[in-house]
C-alpha cells in the first residue's frame, strides 16, 4: 500500500451552471503509484481537468475521498490545501502560466518565494540548477516574452520542480506546442520521472506521446477506466488533438 501516492475513491464533483447541475465526476476511482508516469485521456468535457484539480489539491470534491500519501485531503480547508500544493505538488499548465514581468529565474522561484524555511540564496541556487536541468541555463534572465513556447514550458517544468514535489500534474502540457517541441517536453518529463523518481500525472489529448507500456486512464462520462495505448488505438483515439 505504501507505494500508492494518490488514491481517489468514488470521487464526485458537481457544478451548478445556472439552473442545471453538471456532473463532471460521478464516482471516479483511481490509484496512482509512486514514481509512475500516468496518462489521463478522454474527450472534452469528460472531467479530465476536474479530476486533475481534485488530485492536485486545488479544489474540493462534492463527494468521495482523495488520499495523498495516505492522508485524506478532500476535507481540508483552503490553507491546508495550499500547504499541500506548496509541499507536495507541482503543476504544469497548457498555457504555461508564467508571470510575464518576471525573469525565468524568478518565475521558477515563485512557489517558494514566501516560504521562510528556505533562504533566498539557497532558493536561487536551486532554481538555477533546475533551469540548467531543463536546458535553459543560458536563458535564466530572460522574461517569458523573450522565450519560445517550448522554452516557456521548460521554465514551467522547472517551476513545478522547485519545491521538490512528489507529484507533478501536467494539464495538456503540449497543447500549445508543435509536435517536435511537444516530443522534447515529453522527453524531459520522462527523464525527470526516471532520474528523480517523480510521479507524473498527465492529462492530454495527444495520444502520440503515449508509449505502449504507459499506464493510461480513460475518463468518460465522469468515470475512469484503466486502458492502454493499444486499446486506445483500437477504439480510434489516435493522432493529434480532438476537436474541442
Amino acid at each position: 500500500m505504501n507505494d500508492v501516492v494518490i488514491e481517489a475513491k468514488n470521487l464526485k464533483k458537481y457544478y451548478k451552471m445556472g439552473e442545471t447541475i453538471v456532473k463532471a465526476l460521478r464516482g471516479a476511482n483511481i490509484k496512482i503509484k509512486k514514481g509512475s508516469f500516468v496518462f489521463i485521456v478522454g474527450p472534452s468535457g469528460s472531467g479530465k481537468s476536474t479530476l486533475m484539480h481534485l488530485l492536485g489539491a486545488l479544489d474540493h470534491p462534492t463527494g468521495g475521498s482523495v488520499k495523498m500519501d495516505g492522508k485524506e485531503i478532500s476535507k481540508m480547508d483552503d490553507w491546508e490545501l495550499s500547504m499541500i500544493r506548496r509541499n507536495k505538488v507541482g503543476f504544469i499548465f497548457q498555457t504555461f502560466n508564467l508571470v510575464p514581468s518576471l525573469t525565468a529565474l524568478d518565475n521558477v522561484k515563485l512557489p517558494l518565494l514566501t516560504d521562510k524555511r528556505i533562504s533566498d540564496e539557497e532558493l536561487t541556487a536551486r532554481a538555477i540548477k533546475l533551469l540548467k536541468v531543463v536546458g535553459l541555463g543560458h536563458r535564466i534572465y530572460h522574461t517569458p516574452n523573450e522565450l519560445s513556447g517550448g522554452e516557456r514550458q521548460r521554465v514551467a517544468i522547472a517551476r513545478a520542480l522547485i519545491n521538490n514535489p512528489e507529484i507533478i500534474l501536467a494539464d495538456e502540457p503540449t497543447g500549445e506546442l508543435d509536435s517536435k517541441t511537444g516530443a522534447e517536453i515529453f522527453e524531459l518529463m520522462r527523464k525527470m520521472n526516471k532520474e528523480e523518481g517523480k510521479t507524473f500525472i498527465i492529462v492530454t489529448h495527444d495520444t502520440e506521446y503515449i508509449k505502449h507500456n504507459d499506464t493510461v486512464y480513460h475518463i468518460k462520462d465522469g468515470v475512469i477506466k484503466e486502458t492502454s495505448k493499444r486499446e486506445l488505438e483500437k477504439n480510434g483515439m489516435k493522432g493529434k488533438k480532438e476537436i474541442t
Partner: protein
Amino acid sequence: MLALIVGIITIIVLVSATLGVKSSVSNVMGQMKGIIVYEHDAADVPYSHLSSDYEEKLEDIRGVRVALPEIYGMVRTIDGKKAEGTGSFTAGMVMLVGLDPKKERMRQGDMYGIGVEEGRKFISSDKYAAIISKDIADNYKKNIGSKIELDDGKKYTVIGILEESSVLGSIIVVPLDRARELAHLKEDEVNSFTVQTKNPEDEKRIATLIKMKYPELEAITASQAVEETEDIMGIMDLFFYVMASISLIIAGIGIVNAMLMSVLERTKEFGVLKAVGWENDDLLKLIIEESILIGVVGGIIGIIISVAIVEILNNYMPFSLLITKELIGEAFLFSVIAGIVGGIYPAWRVTKIDPIQAIRGE
C-alpha cells in the same frame, strides 16, 4: 498614484498657506504693545475719526503711560507719478501712516512689530521726514537722505527704511501733521490712538475702562486682536482641512481604483500563485505592501513637488507659506494611510480569486 500626489500637494500647499498667514499675523500682532482705540461706530480703524482731545483724556486715565495718535491714509502720488505699491495685502496701494514725532520716542516696541532697518525713527524736530518700507526704497531707488515727493508736492527726506515685512506691504510713515493734510482730515482730527499702559498686565482692564468711560470709543488690546484674527484663521483652518480631507478621500479612491485595476489585470497571475501554494495571507501581504509602497512613493513625490511649489509661491506671495516638519510628517502619514486603506479592498478581492477559474480564463 497621480490622485494621491495631487492630494498630498493640495494638503501641503493649503495648510502651509494657513500656517504662513497665521504665523506672520501673530508675529506682527504679538509684538504690538498696547490698546488700539478707535471710533466705536467705525467699521475699522482707517474709517474712524477722533478728535485729538482724546489724547489728553486717555492719558488722564490711571495706569495709562501714553496715548499715541495715528493717522491712516493712502499715498496717491510719489515723485509726481501714480504711487505703486507691491503686495496683495495693500492691493498695490501705498499706505500712508502718520505718527506724532514728539511722542514716538515714548512708544514701547515697534509699530506693528516692524523695526527700522536703516536710518532712524522720528524725533521731535522732524517735519518733512519720511520712513518708508523696504519695497518703496527698492522700487523708487531711495536711500537715507533721498528726497521723496508725495501728493502735496512737498519733498520729504527719507530718514528711515523699515525692515522687510510680509504683512504690511508698501507703507510711508510721515509726521502726524503732514499725514493729516495728505489724508484730508480736519484739523485736530486723527484716526486712532495706540494706548500703552504702565503695567502691561493692565491692558485688558484699561481697555474695558476706556470703553466704559467713553462709550463712543472702541478699545481693543493687541492680544485680543490676535485672538480675533486667530478665530478667523480657525475658520480658514477648518475650511482647508475640509478641502484636504476631500482630497485625501479622492486620493484613497484613486489608490483603490489603481490597485483594483492592477489586481484584476493580474487575476491569472494570482491564480497561478495560489495554485503553486501561496496562501491567502501571502497574497494579502503582497497587495497591502504594494499599495503601501504606492502610498510611500506617492507621498514622497507629493512632498517634494509641494516643497518646490511653496518655494516658488513664496517668491510671489505677500506672505510666506510655511512648511513645518509636522506638516510634512502628517502629509506622509496621510499618504501611507491612504495606501493601506486603498489596498484593503483590492487585497480582499485577491483572496477571493478561484485559482481554477483564474488559470482557465484566458
